[in-house]
Each structure stands twice: as C-alpha cells, then as structure tokens.
C-alpha cells in the first residue's frame, strides 16, 4: 500500500532545474532541434510513435529531446499527451496492398510481382563503426532506376489463391463498431484477435522481441518464415459526415510483416500454412516481425494447439507488454514507502521474537 507523503517542494524544484541543465549539457555545444531528431534519428522517432501509439513526428521528437533520449520516458510523455486531445473518430482500415513501397522483401518467394526491394536497410552492412559519419561528411544523392509500374500485391494474397495459405477472414462492414479498443474499455480475458493486435502494436519492442525469440528456440515452436515485410506510406481515410464521403487525411509510414508458419492441420482444418501478422507505425521491422511471431503464438487456442509456453499465454503476454504500465509499477518502488516498511519492520520484529522464544524453549 502506498501512503502519501508531504514536503520536499524546494528539493523537487531544484532537482527539475538540475534536470533541465543536464538535459541541455555543455552550452558550448549547439542545442539540438526537433527537426534534427526527426531527420537524423528517425527510427527513434518511429519507435516513440509506435509505442506511444500516436503518429506525430514533431511530438515524438520533442518527447525524445525532453526525456534526454530515454525512449520509455519519451513514450510515457507521448501517451500522457494523447489523453489531452479529443477523439474525432476511427479511420477506414488502411490498405497495405496500396502502399508507396520503400522496402519489400520476402524470404519465401524469390520472384515476386513487383520485385524484392531492399530500400534503406541495415541488412548486409558489416556493422563496422564508421568514423566518417561523426565528421558530418556530405552524403551523395541516392541512385535512381526506372520504377516498375506494376502493383506489388501482398505475397500472402498470391499464395492464398492456391488454398495452401490460411486466408484472411472477411468481415461484415456492419460490425465495424464492434472492433475492440483498449483505450476505451478495460481488457477482459480471453481477448479477440483485434484487441490482441492493438495491444501488440503498441507493446514494448524488447519484450516482444524476447518472446518472439523464445518461440524460435522451442517455446511454442511454430516454424516461422517471413512471407513478406513491406515498409512504406499508406493513406489514412476518415469518413466525414458533414461531407457525406471519406477524405484522405494524408499518409503515414507503416511496417507490415506477414509471417508464414507450418501447420499440420487438425480434425477440422486441412494441413496448410498459418499466419502471424505484424503492423507497426513507422519503419520498424524488428518490432513488426516480433509482433507477428507473438500474434501467431497467441492464436494457439484458435488452432487447438497445446498452450505450454509463455508466448502462448495471452494474459501473461498482453498484461506485461506495455512498457508504460510496466515502468510505472516497477519505478513506483523507489518512491517513499516509509509506512509500508515500518509495518513490515514491526511484523518481522514480532516474528523474530516468536522465533527466539521457540529456540530458547527448545534449549
């Protein structure tokens, strides 16, 4: 139990002034601007938007600056800010098949319509530190080539036609209002997949990475391969009642991962590939891949699989993936708990007295 304390106002004010000083650092070094963070630390901004669950680059960059680069603190700031804004509505579902593609790879299909596009990737770099970057050298303009005008269909839709891949389950447009929203209703287990995907999309990258890795190491083994990863921009459309039609609000960058998993089939379902899905704000394929591994593991109940591993335990995974909740509860332990401790001290003293009395009686 936490009992409130009073006092310390001057110390707290001075601590925050000291924080502001340390955040700014050496005044001889130019102050960082949010535009620099957006342009040059873009993947930190993307992570802050994804786990802050708010797509707004300027706000995420400000949060990173304010938190001195502590991303979980920055995500906390973004989550707190979003509670101050009214909700205008729910967008139409984005169409990832109609993406302005910046990267698209498949580990399962060599020859894809639309091709394999590496994009701005760390893959195949040698992971050697490059001192030239620290010197701020001029960077050449990127090479260009004739673009393929053909659409690049989602790989899973292509294989789905042969009946070997689990199809996307259609939905009834009238049911749109029944899409679960964990920002509006408290979670009640067991969850439907829509709520799990929402929680996973804003979950901590490190936590999901570890759980995804655990499934590869044999804790809920389900033989994953990347069907497709695509990164790029998609339109966000909102129905506008006063206009009587939907309009585009602009584009957001997302990363999508289609994980393809072996499934030996069950009494009801023939052997086929099943799928795990990852969709994340910004450019973050590690997160999207981890999300898709966890999504597939959490579908164990649906496929009648044994639930034996942490990654398959819905309540465990979903209750612990949110780093703002986790940090809140872990970090509150450092706040004054003097009354709790006093009570525990009294209890230990009583128990100790009893223990010593028993010892003496035995002698």
């Amino acid at each position, binding site marked *: 139990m936490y009992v409130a304390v009073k006092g310390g106002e001057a110390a707290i004010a001075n601590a925050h002034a000291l924080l502001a000083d340390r955040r700014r650092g050496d005044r001889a070094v130019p102050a960082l601007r949010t535009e620099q963070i957006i342009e040059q630390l873009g993947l930190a901004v993307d992570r802050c938007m994804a786990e802050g*669950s*708010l797509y*707004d680059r300027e*706000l995420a960059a400000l949060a990173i600056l304010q938190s001195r680069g502590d991303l979980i603190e920055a995500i906390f700031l973004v989550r707190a800010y*979003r509670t101050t*804004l*009214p*909700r*205008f*509505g*729910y*967008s*139409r*579902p*984005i169409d*990832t*098949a109609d993406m*302005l593609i*910046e990267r698209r790879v498949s580990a399962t299909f*060599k020859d894809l319509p639309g*091709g*394999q*596009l590496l994009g701005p990737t760390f893959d195949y770099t040698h992971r050697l530190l490059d001192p030239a970057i620290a010197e701020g050298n001029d960077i050449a303009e990127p090479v*260009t*080539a004739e*673009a*393929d005008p053909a659409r690049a269909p*989602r790989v*899973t839709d292509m294989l789905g036609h042969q009946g070997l891949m689990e199809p*996307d*389950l259609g939905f009834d447009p009238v049911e*749109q*209002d029944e*899409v*679960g*929203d964990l*920002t509006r209703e408290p979670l009640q287990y067991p969850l439907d*997949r*829509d*709520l799990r*995907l929402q929680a996973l*999309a804003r979950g901590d990258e490190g936590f999901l990475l570890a759980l995804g890795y655990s499934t590869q190491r044999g804790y809920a083994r389900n033989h994953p391969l990347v069907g497709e990863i695509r990164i790029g921009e998609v339109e966000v459309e*909102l*129905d*506008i009642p*006063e*206009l009587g*039609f*939907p*309009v*585009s*609000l*602009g*584009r*957001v960058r997302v990363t*999508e991962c*289609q994980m393809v998993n072996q499934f030996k089939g069950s009494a009801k379902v023939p052997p086929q590939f099943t*799928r795990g899905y990852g*969709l994340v*704000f910004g450019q973050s394929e590690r997160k999207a891949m981890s999300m898709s591994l966890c999504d597939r593991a959490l579908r164990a109940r649906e496929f009648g699989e044994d639930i034996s591993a942490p990654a398959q335990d819905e309540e465990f995974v979903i209750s612990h993936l949110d780093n703002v909740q986790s940090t809140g509860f872990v970090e509150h332990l450092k706040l004054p708990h003097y009354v709790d401790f006093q009570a525990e001290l009294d209890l230990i003293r009583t128990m100790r007295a009893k223990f010593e009395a028993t010892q003496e009686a035995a002698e």
Partner: protein
Amino acid sequence: MTALPVPDTDPRRLALNALAAADANALTAAWSNWSDKPDFKPVRGPETGLVMVRGRAGGGGAPFNLGEASVSRATVRLESGEIGHGYCLGRDLDKARLIAVFDALFQRDPATVETWILAPLRAGATAADTKRKQETAATKVNFFTMVRGDN
C-alpha cells in the same frame, strides 16, 4: 455507423485529398499568391484531435485499432456563403484552415482552384512520389539460389 459510400471521382473529394497531402508551406504560398482573397469566418475550429487509425488482421481481414494520429480540422464560411471543411494529419491549425478556405473556394470557382492550386500540388506530389519510387527501384535485388557444389 455504416461506412459512407466512396465516390471515387467526386471532384471535391479529390480536391480535399490533394490539399491534405500538400506541404503546409505550399498551401501558404498558394494562399499568398491568390489574388482577390475572400473574407471568411470560422464556423468550427481550427482544432486538433485524434483519429484512431485502423489496420486489418493479415492485411485484408477483420479491422483492428493500430494507434492514433493527430489530426487538425477547420470549417469556414466565405462571405459569399460557401462552407468549406479542412482535415489533415498533424497539429498545423493554419493548414487545416487553409484547406477549408480552398474547399469553399473550390465550390465557388472550381476551374480557377483546379488550375492555380490543385494542378501544381498534384504535379509536385507525383514528382516527389516518382523520385521516391525510383530511389527504391535502384535497390531491387535478384536472389539466385545456388546449386550445392556449384560455387
């Protein structure tokens, strides 16, 4: 709520899409170059709020809530009576208001707005997308599966 119908070729819808996609600076420049600026009054906003962005499980399945995005909106009325609505991603209230003004002007005089505002915006957007596609196309790779013992 049942989803609204999507009039794919509605000129007003296409105009609003082009305006929302535009850079705020381009809209400000277009407004400052607009001769004979009409008087307008705010009807609602401009104001900033959130839209919950939805995705679909598996890309094409049942919808789920992916996360929110900041959105600004404004409604204005021109002195001549036309009502314009502006919606765009982000927290730029001036941009939302300018979109609303151009939407109202588009109802009054679509040809002029098309020629002087929308056509240049669309050309700029197409050029930017083409450049991005060409940069991505240069990273297209063909993987060869090696026969064992052949390398």
